């Protein structure tokens, strides 16, 4: 594990809380969470359902706003941006991957991938060329004119990954990217994400339940009941996940280490 100060943090979460009202109850989805993530790292947010990991991911990607605290990405405080500015910022800096792929059913693979490029000034031919390149990176160059309904779950997630990287964003955020896939496809997707980090230097944040993810990430943040686990609690959570995935395998692959910075 590299020292925390070795790299400039791309993401800084500073004393962030997120509360919302559900019915008559106030839900504390996140409480006073602080962490930083260096550029070029592949990290996981892990924890049981309701732990706040998806909320944290939504705050980092600018889809949601904190009730308190500040989120800084590459020096930009997301709280300073209004909703449309935030949309524009996401388009430029964030590639999003969803659990259920969220492809547009009426567009073929190439048009789905080219979709975020509509928000750029690129000519159509260039947009399509880049979409095809992105599809090649994820190994789907033969499927460019296929519609989502004709692709398998694994292929659809690859299209979604191609869509996430087509704008060459600084940050890729993946919400349970293996959640709807079988074991073989899940590993292939995790491997692909790791390759994006290794070969293209992308910073990747992944929310996951999947214990296999520990073999692929540089670091795992564990959350529980809206709190970021640190110190011994975090190490305990890490061990529990390793056990769930089979410890031998994990130690052989060089498991990620818990903590408050990555």
């Amino acid at each position, binding site marked *: 594990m590299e020292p925390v100060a070795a790299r400039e943090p791309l993401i800084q979460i500073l004393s962030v809380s997120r509360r919302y009202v559900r019915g008559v109850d106030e839900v504390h989805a996140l409480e006073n969470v602080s962490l930083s993530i260096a550029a070029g790292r592949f990290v996981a947010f892990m924890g049981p359902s309701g732990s706040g990991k998806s909320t944290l991911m939504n705050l980092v990607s600018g*889809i949601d706003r904190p009730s308190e605290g500040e989120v800084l990405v590459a020096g930009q405080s997301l709280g300073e941006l209004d909703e449309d500015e935030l949309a524009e910022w996401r388009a430029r800096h964030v590639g999003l991957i*969803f659990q259920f792929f969220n492809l547009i059913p009426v567009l073929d693979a190439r048009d789905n991938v080219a979709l975020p490029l509509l928000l750029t000034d690129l000519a159509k031919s260039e947009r399509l060329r880049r979409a095809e390149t992105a599809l090649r990176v994820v190994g789907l160059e033969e499927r460019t004119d296929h519609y989502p309904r004709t692709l398998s779950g694994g292929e659809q997630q690859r299209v979604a990954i191609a869509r996430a990287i087509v704008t060459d964003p600084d940050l890729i955020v993946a919400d349970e990217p293996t959640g709807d896939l079988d074991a073989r496809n899940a590993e292939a997707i995790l491997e692909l994400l790791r390759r994006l980090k290794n070969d293209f230097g992308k910073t990747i944040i992944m929310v996951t339940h999947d214990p296999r993810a520990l073999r692929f990430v540089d670091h795992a943040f564990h959350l529980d009941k809206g709190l970021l686990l640190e110190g011994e609690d975090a190490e305990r959570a890490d061990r529990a996940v390793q056990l769930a995935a089979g410890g031998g395998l994990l130690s052989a692959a060089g498991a990620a280490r818990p903590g408050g910075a990555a």
Partner: protein
Amino acid sequence: MGLPVSYSVRNVLARPMRSMMTAGVIALVVVAATLFLGLITSLKRTVAISGDPMNLIVMRKGSDNDGSSQLSLEAYQAIRFFDGIARDAADQPLASPELVVQPFLRTKDGGRENVLARGVEPVALQVHDKVRIVEGRMFQPSAGEAIIGRGVASRYADAELGKELQFGRGRWKVVGVFDADGSAFESEVWVDVRELANDAKRPFPYSGVRLRAASPTDLARLEKRIDDDPRYALDAQPEVEYYAKQSESANSLYVLVIGIAVLAGVGAGFGAANTMYAAVQARTAEIGTLRALGFSKRSILVAFQIEAIALALLGFAIGAVLSVLLALVLNALLGGIAFGAQTFTTNVITLRVSPSDLIGALGLALLVGVLGGLGPAWRAARLRPIEALRKA
């Protein structure tokens, strides 16, 4: 750049059944609007083109149509030699004394309708120079013969060459069919004016006189001279004005038709809104995805609005084709559309769907699309990405 138009169009095509049902409702509105507009336009056109800018109609003062006017032989003799009336090759003034009566004729489907029978002299064909005999010949005076307009020929029983029409006290053999550029004359039966006067036992031989002026200046001068002449209490007015007044009844129909069209349009608007609300509901996660990817509220609003407009255009296209076909079928089956004129006689109109009627219907369809799509599109645009994505 926002979402491409093809995204919206493909979404319309992706739900063929729902889209076709909504487009079908819009198409019905288009058919209704187009046919009603077509009917009124045809009616107005029929009446409007009946007036010749060089002709004057002379009637008794106080009459508002030639059916209620009476004119003596003496008056006709006096005015036919006024200066400023155009003359034919034989130097005879182009003054056409005319008598109109409104007998009943049997329609081909067994009904009875008032038809305008006009007694004329041969000079009428020069005064009303749009009237051309296209089959047979002109009637012979005092021979019990008649010529009939195309509209009459298509609609009434026995209204064909060689057959006899029965009205008044006599029988009239059809010897010719005339065309009048689609004007109201095509809905008339023309016979010899003296025979008709005898048949109708009128105390005055004429209803009025049509004069062809030698020039526009002469037209104005003649009008004034006849109006000012104290002897016969006559009123002269340009034919164009006369027929414009006759077509005023069509204006109130316009209001009625627009009212009906707007009501139908509101219904169709609700249909379009319903479809689009369902589309927004079904695609909430998709909208969330697009917003999360960075598309602005405006892009989403425009995309859904275009989708509603695409539905409306689809409805318009179906409706336009249907209304043109229906107009053809109605004309063929009914022999034209019968329309009561202000004089209680029947005008037979060929229903034509003109480009302006279609443009009117297109405007209505677009309005339905825009207004029907506005609410759903606004709701889609206002969805917060975080909430929309939760619906995935």
